[in-house]
């Protein structure tokens, strides 16, 4: 009996070691001791057509209808299958796409777009102004259809088809970042009406460089090349988008050669990925992480309390300890790639780590009755995230100067509910990614009293924020770029350095791992992709 079991084990091991039809990942080889004498390989002639690119995402696409949802996993796929009215160039400025030109009326209310005449949907029908109007009104007319997208374009009054290739957009008010908001995907009106929304969402018809071949929920989306793409025919035959949420699995899939590109690699796996011969591209994201102050809850309403917190913590060391290579230290709310940035000036102005100064401010606050010696300061945070570690370090630093403090960590939905309420938490950890590549998207969301963040989380609806509100509204209304830059620089000074609404912490960095055979892959610093665009067309070296 025992001999049989041992033989069975031995046979299994031998059979297993015979190998299987898996693609072996390239492994790095040690550098040669001397200069190689073999003749160098000839340079590549150019992109080679064909092949399948497999991309591993850190999140699962939820919906394939490009007008429906805004989560990053879905938008990544949407950018392959649909085109937007305008796109972004490599400086993140609006650039022509389906709209080849546009003009705004002097009052900034009416925008007229001229569409390209050579664009066809995947079913061969032409893309016209009717489709553009339809795509926008799907979102505008029913806020419940796509609440996230509605919030981004609700400054639009109406979208009309003037003629088959001219679209007129009328805004409710002048809005200079409007071109960023106009970056919405256009779908086929005929296809949506014929198929119905449910069926359309499973196999959308749009005009992008790829079309949906299949979608197995939980496993991935298979896209095939659109042979009649108007911009440039994709080099690749297919793209497979696979959600691999677990970061170790995602990195190991790249190392084993199961995927060609892996997004959002954790910094702990970078060494292993590089050791396997993969390339790692580092991209600063348009993301801003911060410790927010709640101005409507005492002692948060006293600017000395907020300054005390800034002096009490060594923020540079905190960011280094919690995020390592995964984030850049932020000194203001505008991320690299956005404007206006005065990063050096902000760094100079940032209060230094000075526990003695912090203790002085604490003594003043207690002396003046702004807080008591045993006042317990709570920091709301999202449990299980790196931000929870930030909160723990802040609490520890506050305790070191004599402040009673604790971390209040909750799962995401509960955290959001509490941070939007006014019952607990004097500070909170949060991050935001610019919804549009325009400073208004950052400042309006963070600091305007009408936004749910500024109004509810920071508590600006309960304090006098009129000066900041007016500046933000003016920044969105003015069309002149130089004037807008002055406004936003003034805002940064007011909210970050004079009134200390936030402690700026991080701008996240994304690590993308790639098999070296992948060429010309351009990684966007926001949700989505530009793998096939006017300036890039990803291909696979054979």
């Amino acid at each position: 009996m025992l001999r049989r079991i041992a033989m069975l084990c031995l046979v299994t091991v031998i059979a297993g070691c015979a190998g299987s039809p898996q693609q072996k990942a390239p492994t790095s080889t040690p550098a040669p001791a001397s200069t190689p004498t073999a003749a160098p390989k000839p340079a590549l002639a150019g992109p080679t057509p064909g092949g399948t690119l497999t991309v591993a995402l850190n999140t699962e696409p939820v919906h394939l209808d490009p007008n429906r949802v805004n989560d990053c996993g879905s938008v990544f796929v949407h950018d392959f299958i649909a085109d937007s009215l305008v796109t972004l160039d490599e400086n993140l400025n609006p650039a022509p796409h389906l709209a080849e030109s546009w003009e705004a009326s002097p009052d900034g209310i009416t925008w007229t777009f001229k569409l390209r005449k050579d664009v066809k949907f995947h079913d061969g029908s032409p893309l016209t102004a009717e489709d553009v109007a339809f795509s926008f009104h799907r979102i505008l007319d029913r806020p419940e259809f796509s609440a996230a997208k509605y919030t981004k374009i609700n400054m639009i009054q109406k979208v009309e088809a003037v003629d088959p290739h001219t679209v007129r957009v009328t805004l409710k008010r002048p809005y200079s970042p409007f071109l960023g908001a106009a970056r919405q995907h256009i779908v086929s009106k005929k296809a949506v009406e014929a198929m119905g929304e449910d069926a359309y969402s499973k196999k959308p018809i749009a005009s992008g460089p790829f079309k949906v071949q299949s979608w197995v929920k939980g496993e991935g989306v298979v896209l095939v090349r659109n042979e009649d793409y108007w911009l440039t025919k994709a080099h690749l035959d297919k793209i497979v988008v696979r959600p691999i949420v677990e970061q170790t699995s995602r990195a190991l899939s790249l190392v084993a050669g199961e995927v060609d590109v892996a997004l959002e690699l954790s910094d702990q796996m970078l060494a292993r990925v590089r050791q396997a011969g993969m390339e790692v591209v580092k991209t600063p994201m348009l993301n801003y992480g911060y410790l927010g102050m709640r101005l409507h809850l005492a002692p948060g309403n006293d600017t000395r309390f907020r300054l005390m917190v800034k002096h009490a913590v060594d923020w540079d060391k905190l960011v280094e300890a919690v995020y390592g290579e995964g984030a850049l230290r932020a000194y203001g709310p505008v991320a690299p790639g956005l404007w206006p940035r005065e990063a050096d000036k902000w760094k100079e102005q940032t209060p230094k780590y000075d526990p003695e100064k912090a203790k002085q401010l604490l003594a003043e606050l207690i002396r003046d009755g702004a807080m008591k010696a045993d006042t317990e300061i709570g920091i709301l945070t999202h449990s299980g995230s790196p931000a929870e570690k930030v909160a723990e370090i802040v609490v520890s630093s506050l305790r070191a100067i004599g402040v009673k403090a604790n971390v209040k960590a909750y799962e995401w939905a509960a955290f959001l509910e509490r941070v939007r309420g006014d019952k607990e938490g004097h500070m909170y950890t949060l991050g935001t990614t610019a919804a549009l590549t325009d400073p208004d998207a950052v400042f309006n969301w963070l600091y305007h009293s009408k936004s749910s963040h500024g109004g509810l989380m920071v508590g600006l609806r309960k304090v006098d924020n009129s000066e900041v509100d007016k500046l933000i509204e003016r920044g969105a209304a003015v069309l002149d770029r130089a004037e807008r830059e002055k406004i936003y620089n003034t805002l940064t000074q007011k909210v970050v350095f004079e009134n200390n609404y936030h402690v700026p912490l991080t701008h996240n960095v994304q690590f993308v791992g790639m098999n070296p055979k992948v060429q010309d892959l351009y990684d966007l610093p926001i949700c989505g992709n530009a793998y096939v665009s006017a300036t890039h067309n990803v291909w696979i070296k054979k």
Partner: protein
Amino acid sequence: MAQYVARRLLALVPTVLGVALLAFLLMHLTPGDPVQALVGEEASDEAIAAMRTKMGLDRPLPIQFGLFLLGLAQGDMGQSLRFADSVSTLIFERLPATMELAGVALVFSVSMAIPLGVVAAVRRYSLWDHFSIFAGLFGAAVPNFWMGILLMYFLGVELDLFPLTGRGGPLWTSGGWHHIMLPALTLATGLMGSTTRLVRDSMLEILSMDYVRTARAKGLSERHVIYRHALKNAFIPIVTNLGLQLGFLLGGSVLVETVFVWPGVGRLAVQAITGKDFPLVQGVTLVVATTFVLVNTLVDLTYGLLDPRIRYA
């Protein structure tokens, strides 16, 4: 027997309704706004209000539950808030993958646990006995997501034996078999622990009984005594344990499904809970509860096959 089965199936109805009510209440009573969780923190108040009305979340709780029960009576478990798809479709698309993984993991676990447990009992205090106790403890103690990553690394990356992630097709295809090996082995390692121990303890009890001594005294071979007389009678507690394990497995092995990107019900359940997708949570809970009760009913029915003394009134 038929009456027994009918009674057990009828008892399923109040059990499942009770589970549905509990899931409904727990989801609604836990803090957090599902609409906010769905649309993100940047959505406007107007959009949030419109979404809440569309989802029916502005109605009183008894009406929401009543509407859910009405839909359930018509075979409709509602629409997922997050995926904007029918809950039934989402669950039944993933159920085959979960059933495959559960079945294969159980077969692997039983194939390892029964021989190991039998040998440990027959050769008590030997090296095999100690090994089986160690293997059992190891399987039970090691977190299965960690075991999964280890197996993924050594068997998938270093030895290149199996694919790392995904399902690769139904079980009757070679791709399906290749892909299921790592997640099934991971699960089996965890399940094996308790089963090995149970087999060993159950066999030790049976082997000490008088009828086994009588069988040996009559000159039957040791193999005959162990497999024809002892093991069959030791099976009842083992079958109970396997039934419970199968019930849990069919609820979805969340961590293993996440590590191996296995498109099963477990991952769906976690997405539903973290996204506060009420209809999907209720649907998954109902299906899992029903499956659990059905599996345990089947387990109860097998007792009669194993032990002729057991009869059903």
